[in-house]
């Protein structure tokens, strides 16, 4: 029940319509007319409303809240016309069996009203001419100036160049969180982030964009919303995908810089090869316990590439990942911040510290080392002669649903468990936690001549 009124809101009547013996909680939000805004003394407010559309949109918002949360009832009344100090401008009330739903729903409704309802506010001031209050940015409706946001960094960087920049961050995990936070708040104008993972409780200690209440949600979705709220003056786009040979070129195309915040060599090499093919700069960082390494690749600069030293992609199984060797939030925060700082320097000055030398940091001993990169003469990758090999080892969940296959969970199984399926009459789709180990196992079966094995892209996370 959504209403518009030019009369005072009658709180008692509103509460009366919400009464219900099954409800254990009533949460009410009331918006008041206050006497100041942005340093000006406010004397009264005037609300103008596009009634037909506001009623439709307001009703829609309440329906959405009922759908999203477990409520008994939710109602809202918005005032229009001339309001005086202390008047109640908007009243939202939600009842639910438990308080959490009522709190969340009330918050949701008032936030949506602010964004979507065609209602406009004119502030009348004590000493100045009245003014329509517009939100400077229609994404967030904040009443702040962009210049003020960046005030304290104006002397150390070029805001204009950052705003024009268009970067892709691959991975929204341990490194991705500090990188994304730093780039967003610095004002990098267009940030795309790609990740396929869902948030688990064991991520949160080192990935501060997430909290326990969003466990189970997609990292890109939560990260995108957090970053958009952190800096309303930039554009952030999330892509729920895993980087693979089939999408890597499309993902990096047209970007000024790629930031590799992934945690496995296969993806790191794939990104690297694609960046050299399309001549796009890349900053890559990796962590091992208290140590980290970082390198910037600028294909046009001729300071070598990974293929100068590694003709074939090293096998991830020999290395392990964060799950195996352990990782601290403080370490990824430092490394991610350095990576973001290198990115900011590169975007604004075309020069940073990790182009000709790879940096190694050890936070246990607080020491660092720089090693000059090797450039092999006639390295085809350096020249951009790169073949991104199509990978037919994997299928995704939509393909899985269309096929008749054995589905094998290898999370608790040994490496040779697939032997039992060598004579299977149907395709065998194998999955582990995230689809890395299962892919290696499938690759091994393929090299032995068994073509009917596939790995599930994204692993159990994608099911």
């Amino acid at each position, binding site marked *: 029940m959504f209403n518009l009124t030019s009369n005072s809101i009658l709180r008692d009547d509103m509460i009366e319509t919400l009464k219900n013996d099954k409800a254990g909680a009533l949460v009410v939000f009331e918006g008041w007319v206050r006497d100041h805004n942005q340093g000006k003394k406010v004397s009264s407010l005037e609300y103008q409303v596009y009634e037909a559309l506001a009623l439709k949109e307001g009703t829609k918002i309440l329906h959405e809240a009922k759908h999203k949360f477990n409520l008994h009832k939710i109602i809202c009344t*918005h005032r229009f016309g001339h309001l005086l100090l202390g008047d109640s401008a908007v009243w939202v009330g939600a009842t639910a069996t438990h308080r959490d739903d009522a709190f969340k729903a009330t918050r949701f409704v008032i936030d949506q009203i602010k964004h*979507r309802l065609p209602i*406009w*506010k004119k502030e009348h001031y004590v000493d100045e001419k009245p003014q329509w209050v*517009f*939100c400077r940015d229609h994404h967030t*409706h904040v009443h702040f100036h962009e210049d003020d946001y960046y005030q304290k960094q104006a002397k150390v960087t070029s805001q204009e160049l950052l705003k024009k920049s268009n970067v892709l961050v691959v991975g929204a995990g341990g490194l991705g969180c500090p990188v994304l936070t730093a780039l967003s708040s610095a004002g990098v104008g267009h940030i795309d982030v790609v990740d396929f993972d869902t948030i688990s409780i064991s991520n949160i200690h080192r990935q501060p964009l997430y909290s326990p209440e969003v466990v189970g949600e997609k990292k890109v979705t939560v990260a995108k919303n957090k970053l958009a709220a952190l800096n309303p003056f930039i554009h952030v786009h999330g892509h729920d995908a895993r980087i693979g040979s089939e999408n890597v070129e499309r993902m990096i195309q047209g970007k000024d810089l790629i930031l590799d915040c992934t945690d496995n060599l296969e993806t790191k090499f794939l990104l690297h090869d694609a960046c050299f093919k399309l001549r796009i700069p890349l900053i890559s960082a990796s962590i091992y316990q208290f140590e980290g390494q970082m390198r910037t690749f600028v294909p046009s600069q001729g300071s070598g590439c990974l293929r100068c030293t590694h003709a074939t992609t090293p096998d991830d199984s020999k290395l392990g990942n964060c799950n195996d060797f352990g990782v601290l939030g403080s370490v990824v925060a430092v490394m991610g911040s350095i990576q973001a700082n290198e990115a900011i320097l590169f975007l604004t000055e075309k020069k940073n510290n990790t182009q000709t030398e790879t940096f190694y940091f050890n936070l246990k001993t607080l020491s660092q080392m720089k090693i000059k990169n090797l450039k092999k003469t006639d390295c085809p990758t350096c020249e951009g002669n790169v073949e991104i090999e199509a990978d037919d080892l994997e299928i995704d969940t939509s393909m899985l649903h269309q096929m008749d296959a054995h589905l094998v969970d290898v999370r608790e199984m040994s490496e040779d468990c697939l032997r039992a399926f060598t004579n299977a009459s149907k395709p065998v789709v194998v999955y582990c936690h995230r689809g890395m180990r299962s892919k290696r196992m499938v690759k091994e079966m393929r090299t032995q001549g068994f073509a009917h094995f596939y790995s599930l892209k994204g692993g159990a996370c994608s099911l």
Partner: protein
Amino acid sequence: MKSINVQYFALLREEAGIEKEQISVDCKTYGELYQHLQSKHKFTLPMDMIQVAVNDEFSLLNLEIMDGARIVFIPPVAGG
């Protein structure tokens, strides 16, 4: 030529100096119509801050104008 009704709210109403007008235009899209009205009424809000409603439903600026439509250009809102 299409005959349409345009209604104004908030700052747009003040800048236009009228609440509504019935006009005939040969613009193709709502975006073009806004640009046309912007130069006519000296609207200060850039188009990327504007949404459009057609017959009391949110619509898109790049859609083609419906003949006889009731059109409202919606400045950034501030409910609450």
